[in-house]
């Protein structure tokens, strides 16, 4: 909810570094609270499935968090994309969709 407000206030294209940073922070905070991993334990390119951070329930929680927080739709192709296995990849998926939408909601 709060990220939505932050992002709505920004109303900027996704290339804006401040927006990218907000997206990154929001995802990291969610991952830390939901998957119980500290920032030091998981790098941006760590495979979250192989590292046993995200299980199938965790993935369901992740997808609905992304959809609700950023107002985007995670499609079937996204679900099977290797991008969804790392924090950096997830950020790219989100910013890519925000860019497609032209502006941030």
């Amino acid at each position, binding site marked *: 909810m709060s990220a939505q407000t932050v992002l709505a206030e920004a109303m900027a294209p996704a290339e804006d570094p401040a927006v990218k940073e907000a997206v990154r922070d929001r995802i990291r905070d969610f991952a830390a609270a*939901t998957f119980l991993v500290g920032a030091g334990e998981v790098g941006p390119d760590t495979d979250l*499935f192989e590292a*046993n951070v995200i299980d199938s*329930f965790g*993935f369901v929680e992740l997808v609905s968090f992304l959809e609700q927080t950023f107002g985007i739709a995670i499609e079937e192709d996204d*679900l099977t994309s290797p991008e969804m296995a790392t924090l950096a990849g997830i950020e790219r998926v989100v910013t890519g969709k925000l860019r497609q939408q032209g502006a941030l909601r």
Partner: protein
Amino acid sequence: MTGPRPTPVQACRRCLLPATLPGLAFTADGLCDLCAATGEAEAEAERVALRARLDALYAAHRGTRPYAAIVAYSGGKDSSYTLKHLVEEQGLRCLAITVDNGFLSAGTLDNCRAVCAALDVDLVVFTPSRRFTERMYRASVERDDLHAPAAVKRASAICSSCITLINTHMLQRALELRVPIVAGGYLGGQVPRDGAVMTLRPGRQARIRTALVNRFVGALGEGARRYFDLPGAAEGDPEVVVVNPMLGVALSEEAIKAALAPLGWRQPTDTGLTSTNCRLNDLGVYLHSRRHGFHPYAMEIAEQLRGGTISREAAARKLGTLPGRGDVAWMAERIGLPADAL
């Protein structure tokens, strides 16, 4: 989000989630962030929307196949109610599958047979190798790498392993028999809110499964593969929809038991403190509470409190009722835990 805290919060004032539950933050006025995020009206609206989604799904599959749904049937009250709901209210032809983990209470299989007979449902009892399951339970206690760290929020390690084996077995059978729906009797808090309806395409969603199989095979040897692997995409990538209908049902435990009585379901008397079907639950609860400082049922009881299906007193009583060492020692011994593990 977390405001200044004049006194440390012990538990959420609405749902009783304890501050010892990892990853939880509290607002200044003593609400956990889960309660702060969802009001009662929102939760009710979510439940109504979910029921509509489930109804549409059932309508699409009613009468289309020999079995419209496989029900993961533990014989406990929640999966018994799930089965009744799907058969009687939704008109789905179901196959009930019970996994006998070697620790079912004496009355459980009687309940399974009675309820299935009353509902005119086919029942299969699957008994995995006792030697394997006992090794799996022991490994669940002794290793911390079988489940993702966040799994501690939902269930004890013993239960998580058992649930993983059971869920996989249901999916294996659904893929084999081409059954479009797998239904579990899980409650809110035992699965994520969005776990009420999940579409699975094993061939396309192999990454999480591969990681899971590797963990269990790594810990328990190649023999584990048959319990945790799923057939791949070879058969045209069939789709299975996994549903947990109880997430759309707002009934108290008493109401559920009352609805089951006419089907011949009886509360077993030897299940220990924390379950209506499995005795091993108590060992899981005992170890989990000591290791993590909170009851493994805290999340589901919190959901019941938010949904108004349990009283505060009953919830507090459940959270405060912990099995003792003497209640669980025989199970620890049977799965090969050393005496000092308790």
